[in-house]
Structures are given as structure tokens and as C-alpha cells.
């Protein structure tokens, strides 16, 4: 009960941010170059025809009126329709969100699996060769533009070595998608008991996920190292050492459990950052996610998908933060009380 109320309160306090996002996106999309009416009117339309279409789309109204209409549509769950795909934005996003989410999550898991141990080792062997090496490797990963990393990986692992499957999205062209349950092909294929599709999905995921993971290594490793260093230097670790607890218990049980708190906060930021970076990676790997969807829309001045995308992402981000807060509370009893 209390938890539910707290979650409710958190959501209410997030509302101004959502409102802010809606207003800013609306204004930003209105000053995008490009004329929707001209687009609809077709290549040979006369100015009069364009004006007529403009009126029909309601684009001749003043901005406040347009905004009210937009908000009204939103309230009814109508996100508008995309010019580029011709579909309702909500349908597009629902169809594409799982692809992005699956990609980013796999990337995040991959990054965490590598970066956290790296960070711990670097902290334990502070200022050693291995510490410097971790730092250089992780920093190198974050220093390359993601699209460039992606293309390099495609070139090496697909084009030259032939180890990776063709960069054609979530599944091989001739494989069919598993029956939709979660929208995550990895999960859906397992649910359907289709190991072949599962392997195919995984194969398609490796390169794009690695591209993103390489990018995410540095912040996670850096934060893990820093948090571990400060926790390892703290009094209670000294107490634990003085009590003869084994290094394993001290490092993993005592130090890491405390250090994981700032790491989780970082993970939240990295997640939203990866969702942004996935925009470029999706373009490279022809990944049918919402990132590439939004970019195409933005370039085409197709504002309904852009607005829908940003709104969905904002809500996702807020939910993500909520999850982090809950997780934080599970780990840290101090937060639970004063939340």
C-alpha cells in the first residue's frame, strides 16, 4: 500500500517533466523546416492546392490552437500518423519499440558483464598496469563515433570474415518472426520452443549489441571503479577486514554491494544514452527500431512520429527512473525510509 502510494507520488511529480517534453517537442517540430502541406499536396501542386491541404490538416491555425488540438488528440491516444510509413504513429511505435528495447537491453547486459568486473579489478589493483589498461580500453571504446564502430564491425565480421550474418535487421531474411508474445524475439522464440530462430536472432543481435556495448563500457567501468575505490577506502570495509572476513566477502559482499548503488544510477543514464545512440546503430544495421524510425521522420520533417517517439521515450525514461528508485530502495535501506 505504502509502496504503491509512493510510486503514485513519484509519477505525479514526474508529470511536469512530461508536460515540458510535450511542449518543447511540439514547438521544436513546428520550427522544423519542411512543409507538411506541400508534402501532402504532391510534387505538382499549386500554391492554392497547398493552402487548401494546409487548412484541411489544421496547419493554418495559430500555434496555441494547434497545440490544444494536439493535446486533445494525445488524450484520446491519437498520436497522429506518419508520412514516411503512412501508419498511425502509435502502431509504428508499438511494433518497433521491442526491437530497440531488445537491442539496448542486450547491449546493456553485455556492457555490464564486461565493464563491472573490469571496474572492480581496476579498483582493486589501483594504479597498476591493469588499471591503466582498463582505463585505456574503456575510454577508447567511448571515443569512437558509434556509427563508425558499427561499420567497422560489419566490415570485419561480416564482409571480411563472414562470421556474422548480414546486417539486415532482427532476423535473417528467410526466417520468420516467432509468434509475438513479448515482442522480444529472444524470449518469443524460446517460448515457442524454436531454437533455430533463437540462434538466428542472437546471431543478428551480436554485432549491433556489441557496437552499443563498446560505447557503454567506459561510463560503467569508470563509475564502478570510482565507487569501488571510495567504498574500499571506507571505514566499514576496514572493519570487515579487521574482523578477518575473506577478501571475497569483503569485496563482493561488503564493498560491491555498496558500490553498486551509484553504478545503478549510472546504468539508468547509460540506458537512456544508449537509446539515443541506438538511433545511429539502428541505421547502420537496418534495425527496425524506434530510433531509426525517429531519425527518418526527423530528417523528413515528419513531425508526428518525432513527437510520438519523444513522448514515449520520456515516459520510458521516467518509468526507468522509477524502477531504479525501487531497486535502490531494495538495496539501500536508508532510501526506503526517507523516500
Amino acid at each position, binding site marked *: 500500500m505504502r509502496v504503491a502510494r509512493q510510486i503514485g507520488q513519484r509519477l505525479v511529480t*514526474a508529470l*511536469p*517533466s*512530461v508536460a*515540458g*517534453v510535450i511542449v*518543447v*517537442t511540439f514547438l*521544436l*517540430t513546428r*520550427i*522544423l*523546416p519542411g512543409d507538411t502541406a506541400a508534402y501532402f499536396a504532391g510534387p505538382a501542386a499549386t500554391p492554392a492546392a497547398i493552402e487548401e491541404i494546409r487548412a484541411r490538416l489544421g496547419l493554418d491555425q495559430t500555434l496555441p490552437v494547434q497545440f490544444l488540438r494536439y493535446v486533445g488528440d494525445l488524450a484520446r491516444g491519437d498520436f497522429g500518423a506518419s508520412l514516411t510509413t503512412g501508419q498511425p504513429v502509435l502502431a509504428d511505435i508499438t511494433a518497433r519499440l521491442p526491437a530497440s528495447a531488445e537491442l539496448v537491453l542486450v547491449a546493456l547486459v553485455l556492457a555490464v558483464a564486461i565493464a563491472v568486473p573490469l571496474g572492480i579489478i581496476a579498483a582493486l589493483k589501483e*594504479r597498476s598496469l591493469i588499471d*591503466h589498461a582498463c*582505463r*585505456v580500453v574503456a*575510454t*577508447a571504446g*567511448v*571515443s*569512437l*563515433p*558509434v*556509427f*563508425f564502430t558499427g*561499420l*567497422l564491425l*560489419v*566490415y570485419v565480421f561480416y*564482409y571480411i570474415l563472414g562470421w556474422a550474418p548480414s546486417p539486415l535487421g532482427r532476423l535473417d531474411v528467410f526466417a520468420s518472426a516467432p509468434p509475438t508474445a513479448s515482442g522480444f524475439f529472444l524470449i518469443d522464440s524460446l517460448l515457442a520452443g524454436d531454437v533455430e530462430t533463437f540462434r538466428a536472432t542472437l546471431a543478428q543481435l551480436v554485432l549491433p549489441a556489441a557496437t552499443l556495448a563498446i560505447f557503454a563500457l*567506459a561510463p560503467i567501468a*569508470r563509475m564502478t571503479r570510482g565507487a569501488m575505490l571510495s567504498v574500499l577506502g571506507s571505514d566499514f570495509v576496514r572493519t570487515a577486514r579487521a574482523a578477518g572476513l575473506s577478501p571475497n566477502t569483503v569485496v563482493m559482499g561488503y564493498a560491491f554491494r555498496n558500490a553498486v548503488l551509484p553504478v545503478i544510477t549510472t546504468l539508468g543514464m547509460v540506458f*537512456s*544514452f544508449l*537509446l*539515443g*545512440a541506438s*538511433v*545511429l546503430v539502428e*541505421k547502420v544495421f537496418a534495425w527496425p527500431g524506434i*530510433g531509426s524510425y*525517429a*531519425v527518418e521522420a*526527423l*530528417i523528413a*520533417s515528419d513531425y508526428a512520429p*518525432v513527437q510520438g*517517439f*519523444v513522448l514515449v*521515450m*520520456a515516459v520510458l*525514461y*521516467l518509468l526507468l527512473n522509477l524502477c531504479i528508485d525501487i531497486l535502490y530502495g531494495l538495496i539501500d535501506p536508508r532510501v526506503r525510509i526517507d523516500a
Partner: protein
Amino acid sequence: MSAAGISEARAASGLTATLQHARHVITENPVTGFAFALFLLLVVTAILGPSLVPYDPLATDSSASLRPPSARHWFGTDQLGRDIFSRVVVATRLDMIIAVTSVAVVFAAGGLAGIAAGYFGGWTDRIVGRLADTIMAFPLFVLAMGIVAALGNTVTNIVIATAVVNFPLYARLARAEANIRRDAGFVMAARLSGNTDLRILLFHILPNILPIMVVQMSLTMGYAILNAAGLSFIGLGVRPPTPEWGIMVAEGAAGIISGEWWVALFPGLTLMGAVFCFNLLGDGVRDIVDPQRRT
């Protein structure tokens, strides 16, 4: 001894101490030393670049299109026969300008807003906090894209976009740091000494937060260059034919598959080197300013 003489001597002693410490950090940590060297190289290149290059970075030469690296063209040539080495070198200045100005802008806006929020609390804090939350709720790269797409792809707008997406980071960092210090003894002492809030913010709190901000600024400089590269990849980079690393990588990227690896690789490596340098520098600066390491 004149007052001016004293203050100079004093400044010198403070400066030498800092320099000594910096030298210590650089020599003790080879990676940081390397980063500092790289940084110096970048600065020198940015200043002298255009007068050093062997070719006009804008001059096309259809007879030398897409030449691989050679003694004449160290980094090869691009599709229009322009010398990639010259372009990479000349681009340093623009990329550094993008990096430095976006950091300056975001520091001025985000840093000051954050310090005020942390120090005053209350409504200031709430407004700055909401602003930061709202920006954070955007997928940041898409927001940057949106800003550049809406305002036009000029250097100024790329700088603005980078500054805007980094605003929350600075505001939050500065807020947290100012907040720890708002009740510190020296701030109370400053109030007892008759300092107004504004003076306390600018002359007492800001100088203490600066070192921590400098670390962040170093990281942001790297991010600014990456951001510009990402924008170039989706066609929102600076105007051609201006050489800029990101746009060179983006334009050369397609050529990797067809075997013209040098077109993207050299600008890519340079870009990576610069971002790498800024990131490592951030760590290095952290070592220098970290009072715990300084005895």
C-alpha cells in the same frame, strides 16, 4: 615591497605548487602524461594547422581522386581528390572550437544555474531541477538532432545543441556540489564577513566547484566532437566543403566496404584520438584537483 610585488610572488608560489603537482601527476601516471602531450599537440595544430599543411584543404584534384596513402598524400585523397591529411589537420581548429565553445556555453548556463539552485534551494532549485529533468527525459541525441534540424545546421546551432543536451549534467553536478557547501563553515564565515549571496556564489562557492567542473568539461569536450560526428552521419553536420572530422568520417564511412578505408579511417582515428585525449585528460585533471591526493 609593493603590494603588487607581494601578490605576484604569492601567485607565483601558488602557481609553482600547482605546476609541481601537475608535473607529478603527469610523470606518475603515464596515461595522463600521454593525454597531456596529445592535448598540447591538438592545441598547437589548431593554432598553426592551416599554415602547416602541404595542400589547400579545399582544393579538388580530379586527377588524384581516391588515392591511397602515399608519400605525396600521407592520408590519401578523397573522392574529389582533396588531400585528407591537410583536411584532417585544418579541421582541428573547427573541432576544437566546437568542443570549447559548447563547453563554455554549457558551463556558463548549466554550471551557474546549478550553483544557484544548490545554494538558494527553494524555488530556484525547483525550477532548475525541473528544467534539467525535462531535458533529461528527452532521448538526448534525438534532442540534439531536433535542435539542429529545426534551427539549421550551422556551427552555432551544433554548439547550442551540444550545450543544451549537456545542461542537466552540469546543473546537477554544480547543484550537488554547491549544496554540500552551502552550509560549509567557510560559507557561513563569508556571510559573517558581510558577503552578499551573489558574492558568496561567485567568489566563494564557484572557485571551489571549478575543479570538479573542469573534469566534467573535459569529458564534455569529447562528447561535443562525437555529437557533431553523429549529427554529420545523419546529414546534419557543418556546411560543406568545410573540413570537420565527423563529417569526413561520416562521408567516408560508406567507402570502408568498397576498400577506400583511408577516407574514413584517418579522420576517424584523429577524432578518436582527440576524444580519447579529452576523456583521459578528465581523469588526469581529476587526479590533479582531487584534494585527497594532494598532501
